[in-house]
């Protein structure tokens, strides 16, 4: 199985997008990204948790301790209003970037 390296700056975007569906704990976020990308993208734990802490510090997500499926304590992350705005902005600029890059690659 081969994974793609995540381009810089996209990790935050992916985490924020994964949280759009509702609060999730860290493991579920990485699983979700892996599944949705059809196993192409994989977030390594070594970068996931520092990123979560960074996003929390910036106020884009907030954390709460909850109980997971089999009754274990887990830390759930949830988008804040600021996080939603950030997600929209970054999604828009991501589309613009990929469209532009695609255009250059095709016609350039």
């Amino acid at each position: 199985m081969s994974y793609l390296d995540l381009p810089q700056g996209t990790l935050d975007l992916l985490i924020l997008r994964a949280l759009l569906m509702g609060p999730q704990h860290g493991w579920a976020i990485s699983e979700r990204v892996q599944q949705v990308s059809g196993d192409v993208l994989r977030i390594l734990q070594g970068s996931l948790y520092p990123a979560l802490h960074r996003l929390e510090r910036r106020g884009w997500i907030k954390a709460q301790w909850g109980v997971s499926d089999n009754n274990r304590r887990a830390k759930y992350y949830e988008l804040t209003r600021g996080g939603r705005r950030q997600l929209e902005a970054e999604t828009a600029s991501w589309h613009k970037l990929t469209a532009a890059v695609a255009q250059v690659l095709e016609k350039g």
Partner: protein
Amino acid sequence: MGMLSDWRYRLRALLRRETVEAELSDELRFHFEKEVEKLERRGLTPEEARRQGRLAFGGQEQVAEDCREERGTSLVENMHQDVRYALRVLRKNPGFTAVAAVTLALGIGASTAAFSLVDAVLLQPLPYPHAGRALMVWLESPPGSYYGNIDMPWAAQDYLMYSGMQRAFAQLGAFRKKTFNLTGEGEPELQEGVEVSAGFFPALGGRPLLGRMVTAADDQPGHEPVAVLSEWLWRTRYAGDRGIVGRSIDVNGLPTTVIGVMPASFVFPDGAGMPAGLDVPRRTAMWVPMALPAGAHGSNDMGVVGELKPGATLAQLDDDLANFNRRFAEVYPQAKGFWTRAVPLAEQAVTETRRPLLLWMGAVLVVLLIACANVAGLTLNRAVGRRREFTLRGALGARRGRLVRQMAVENLLLALVGGGLGLAGAEASVEAVRRFGPATLPHLQEAGVHWPVALFALGVTLATGLLSGLGPALGTTRMNLVEALKEGGRRTIGSVTAPRLRNGLLIAQVALAMVLVAAAGLLLRTFHAMLHTNAGFDAAHVVTFELPLPVSPAYADTNRMAQVYGEVLERLRGIPGVQAAGFASVVPMGGETDSTIIRISGRPHARPGDEPGANYQFVSPGFFRAMGTPLEEGRDMADSDTLASRPVAIINRTMAEKDWPAQDPIGKQVGVGMVRIPLRTIIGVVADTKQTSLREAPAPEMYVPYTQNEIKTWPSMQTMQYSLRLHGNTAGIAAAVRQAVDGVDAGLPVSRLTELQTMVDASMSADRFALLLLSAFGLLALVLASVGMYGVISYTVLQRTAEIGVRMALGAPRRQILGMVLRQGGTLALAGIGIGLAGAWMTTRLMAGFLYGVRAGDPATLAIVAVLLLGVALAACWVPARRAMRVDPMIALRAE
């Protein structure tokens, strides 16, 4: 909102560290367990699932560290950790800690002490509120005139003209020296002070401690006499009586009302930095109104100080002065080329003292650099020994930055300990300097470890900590983890940079020490030359004192003055134990004499500006015998030389050789510049004497009998300095002198009675102080450099133990091992000495002004210092070299 949550987050992370850490570890464990569950679901055995989970997870500590980093509090947290760790490390190596801390304490202490002096003398504003806007104005004589281009005091008429037309100064004041004979209560006492005009105090912005200062109303001719006292005179003579204002005291025989007392900080003028032409009090005791009448006329004896108007610029002042210069040239067409110059008061006060202070500061910085290099070397040695520890920490995930920071923190802690010790040392040394330092240094008494000084010490401490820690830290942490692990704990010559850095540091230390010791050596030679110079007099068993006559109608006439001086001399000669006695206007080491343009009979008039000159003063018969000054030709003065007989003079050797080269000056005619004054016949030639300092070059001197004063107004006979040669014991002489003077007039003050040797010593105090200071620093540098040398060589011996073992096993004789180590140390020392020689040759030029009898870059001194340094360096290598020689090859090889 982003900012707010950010800070809230960081604050929680910092304050509730334990909770946050526990949460993080829970969170990571949860993730790991979910991962393992997933793997188990795929059919792996629990053990295999855990193994793969750990692999996928990476280092748990590493992830946690990264998370901490993201929390934005890692800097504070790590610092906390680093400090705790560093304290543990330092405690575990008490030897290293003590040596390094004491080394830094010496460097920081010395530089802090020197800075506090520089701060008090050079950097602190003068203790006069308007000092920032106050300037002194001087007349300038043209270059090439007899006086040369120098700052000259003002004459009353010129000052009145200038103060009438100037517009740039809000306040302008003049002052001139005056001596005050204080009689009435207690012993008669002679003090010096100044007459001032009404603008003097306002120009400086002085505020009285008690009463008031001189006003325009006091400064009127015919106003009743008033005086403002200095704090110290008020304290010593009047017992600090707070009711002194309004009281009447006797000054020069006149009842004078005290109108005020100035605070202790107000000491202007105190002579600091004033040009030689202006006579100022050694210590100002009081200020009285000058009360210049409208058409006053006089000689150039006044200093002028003014405070610029608010908003007035120096350019406006220059315009003002240019106007005055034009006017001056119109009024005195003969005074061609004179102009005026304004000097900010702050510059005026320090010019002469700036140089020695900067010399000390330079010396101190060198010591500080050596201390830094030394501690850096020690740190480096230890760091190379700690490679294993660093490798281990690196393998566990510590980044290089973290290791560098760790070492920097250790050295910062060391520096803080050193800084604390140094500050205490600085306090003590400033106290010592205040007590023993030269009295000529202005504002010395205000020196102390104040706030700015403490801040400076803190800055130096941090800088030395970083300087001595960062270099070694960067040098030793540059390593390849895998290579280092493979090497394991074996002692090898670590990275390539470490020995190069270490040797560089050592060479720098030796070079810096060389410069300092060379400078101290030159000062030592100077001092030696001064002590062995021929002063032209013999100070042993000579007592001198000054006898000033009161300004009163009783002593108005110069013949009457001469008569009193003669009667006192007669009585002094009658004191048992007095071998010879005499007096002069100024005895050697007693101050500066007057000087004059001279004319020599039979020679054409010299062009203005080229006239020959000579110092000129009165002496009594027997004065040269009392001083032990050899009379080389002719005869001494005699009581028979009077106004009725032929005018005579004695000249010194320098004048004889300058004005009558290869001729016999006896019988030749010479006189002052004024044509109507008759010429004098030279009756004798005396040896050159040093007048103001042992290091001065001899100047032409002309001595005239005090009984032949036909000019009457010049030179002043207001005071004479007596010199008594005793048969040995000087005890009881003060009372005998007092009794002799009382026999003539009990109202006469006996001033400054002291042994001549004391005055000679006092004239050398600045030189002695500079020598002491620089020698102390030189010694310090030498000790530090040899400690550094010892450290480096013993470390390399330790590192090369195995190699030495192999050499010995292969048959190298022990002497050869000794030679090898000594050669290594010697090579480093020679490199340092070479660089130091070049440095000393260049930098000692800067101290040419301090030297006497020896030239900057003197080859003999440099050679001796170089040999001394090499000797000290080899001695420092000797112990480790002996240790190398005694290495047992069997043990050395087995240890590998």
